[in-house]
């Protein structure tokens, strides 16, 4: 039991205390983004690992969370942390709406419903843009963006990285809690057979929607955190194709553990930055990235995290 917690706690303590001191300003920013996207990837994993449901709209939901966070940031005086939480809850509600068609389907068709949703969000973001300090419901002025408020304790990049790590760790705990309590058991039964689960008295509809709510909440919190990390958001960051890519990377990282989500975030944000920093041309980086993606999907069905954890448990008997 204690060993099970050893690795996550070590990683958490190290990344909270030591990591920000070891990184230069560039990598502080990169790692902040990577950690934020890990959170969103964890949301994808919940749906895919627990229920076999595919969500290609997670990046769009991050955008939605970011939109809500920016709107509240400009429009109200609510503290930043509360805003992040509200962005999460709002996105969770939208996630629940996405869940309605999911009650009747899974597999490729559900994936396509979420892809269509992601496509629609992409257009919406393009049409209405992200709030930049303007007035009205949409909060967009045809001008340069105004500044946003950040959390009081996290005004520098380093402090914001720590702030992000704490919030993301809390959300990971939330997922872990779900896995080992009633929802986790219910999801496992639903995955085996919906009919059996229902016969055993599991409220199938409720627990399926609940999984989407949890996943959406994490996307929304990620969006809120991203708005603070970048200061402003851009429609080009939330393309439908990125939603497919994040799902692919969540699978590559491994959907069965928190480590997989972390790896997915690092692959999504850290790897391109590394490629860029060593001066690899963006085109060549894309080729390598695509090849690595194909290779990982083909050779590691349980993801990189699955392989790492197996190696880890072998080493420490």
């Amino acid at each position, binding site marked *: 039991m204690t060993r099970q917690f050893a690795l996550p706690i070590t990683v958490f303590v190290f990344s909270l205390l030591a990591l920000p001191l070891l990184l230069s300003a560039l990598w502080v*920013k990169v790692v902040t983004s990577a950690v934020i996207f890990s959170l969103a990837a964890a949301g994808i994993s919940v749906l895919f690992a627990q229920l076999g449901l595919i969500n290609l709209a997670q990046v769009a939901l991050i955008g939605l969370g970011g939109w809500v966070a920016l709107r509240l940031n400009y429009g109200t005086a609510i503290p930043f942390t509360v805003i992040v939480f509200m962005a999460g809850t709002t996105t969770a509600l939208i996630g629940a709406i996405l869940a309605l068609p999911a009650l009747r389907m899974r597999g490729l068709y559900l994936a396509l419903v979420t892809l269509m949703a992601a496509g629609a969000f992409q257009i919406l973001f393009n049409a209405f843009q992200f709030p*930049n300090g303007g007035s009205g419901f949409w909060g967009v002025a*045809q001008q340069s963006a105004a500044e946003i408020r950040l959390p009081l304790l996290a005004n520098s990049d380093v402090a914001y990285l720590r702030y992000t790590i704490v919030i993301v760790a809390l959300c990971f705990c939330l997922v872990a809690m779900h896995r080992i309590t009633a929802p986790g058991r219910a999801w496992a039964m639903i995955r085996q057979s919906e009919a059996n689960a229902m016969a055993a008295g599991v409220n199938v509809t409720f627990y399926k929607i609940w999984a989407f709510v949890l996943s959406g909440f994490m996307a929304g919190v990620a969006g809120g955190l991203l708005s603070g990390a*970048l200061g*402003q958001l*851009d429609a*080009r*960051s939330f393309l439908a194709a990125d939603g497919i890519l994040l799902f692919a990377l969540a699978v590559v990282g491994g959907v069965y553990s928190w480590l997989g989500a972390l790896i997915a975030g690092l692959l999504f944000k850290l790897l*391109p*930055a590394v490629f860029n920093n060593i001066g690899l041309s963006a085109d060549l980086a894309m080729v390598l990235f695509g090849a690595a993606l194909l290779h990982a999907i083909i050779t590691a069905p349980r993801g990189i995290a699955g392989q790492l954890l197996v190696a880890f448990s072998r080493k420490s008997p």
Partner: protein
Amino acid sequence: MRFSANSFVAAIAYCFASLAMPALADDPSCGLGTEVMATGEPIKVGGINGNAPPGDFSGGTDAAAAYFSCVNAQGGVNGRPIEYIVENDQWNPELAGQVATKLVKDEGVVALVGNGSVVSMAVNADLYRDEGVMVMASGCAISECYESSNIVSSNQGPLPSGIGALTYAVEELGSEYAACIGFNIPNNGGWACDWMNKFMESKGLKGTSILMDPTAVDLNSVYLQALAEGVDTILLMLPAAPAIGLLKVAEEQGGRDLFKWVSPTPLYDPGVAEVLGDYWNDNLYINIELAPFGSEGADNKNWVAVMDAYGQDGDRRDTFSQSGYVSARFFVEALLKLDPNAIDRAAVTKAIQGISNAESDLLCKPYYVGDADRHMPNHAGRMVAYSGGAFNIVRDCYDIESSYLDPIRQQEAALGINQ
């Protein structure tokens, strides 16, 4: 009246330039011009370009890199070479924030020069201000470039160039109702088209914005929308590729004679002639922000010489390239006035802010920076007509009228230039 004053300024600029650069046209002249390789401690200068779809904005940094190599080969900055670090933000806002942080915080550059990235300016304007670093940009198309204390661009951007094009359309082509077709991006198409409409209103005429989704596939509908609006003039507030797409649709629909077609600078590109063909001869008017590529001005010829001698294969030779050359030249001239051993960010920022009345035949009017909350030194351009695969000047240097420039004119009055 204004016209002749401008020619006078241009003539003076020409004389100054030829005095400053007695070298032959194909012999580049940069900085001290001493033909001694600089060997001292390098001065770190940064540059950020955006080179990925939807466009290659690397012309500015390419030209700045060539100019700095030339400076380093000709004595450097009083013996100290410039180490130019260029990053590509790939039009990705997140990456833009990261590379700027790297340059400004990790590398500790004294300034950024030749920047040609649209995304980076929006994301990083606050960073530049907070870190007290100046950006002498060369390829800007969004409001942040012209409304920030620490960014000054030597290109005009869509607003002045678009108004310049409209001015010509109204005065020479008789436009009364113009549609501004732009991207639906608040600090780009939205911002620029808003000011186009204000300009038309200020003339007692009508203007309307047709803002399109940058990822839109169907340009036909955009064209038909303009047709349905009943406008008489179309202003293409777009990057070159979608603008060409729209012109193709118009060609297909026989739209050449239904509208007057004007555009800001993006369509003034060496590659355009090959793609447009003969259909648009004498029916497409483009405002250009800097001197024509083939101009006989001394500085323009030196730009070509620098690019020939120090440029890389595949460097773009477009408006951004000229603009990058101008930024780099004025930057080096400002540095040369400093004590080479006391060059740090604070001193460089002050030196850049001190640039005033700098002349180049690439620009219609003198360049300046000053200590202000916004900068737009270049707002006078020329108009060219597309004809037979070439561009002919139809109106030489002229300034624009817009209330947008009110704060700019105040700065100019305070500095005593452009009066």
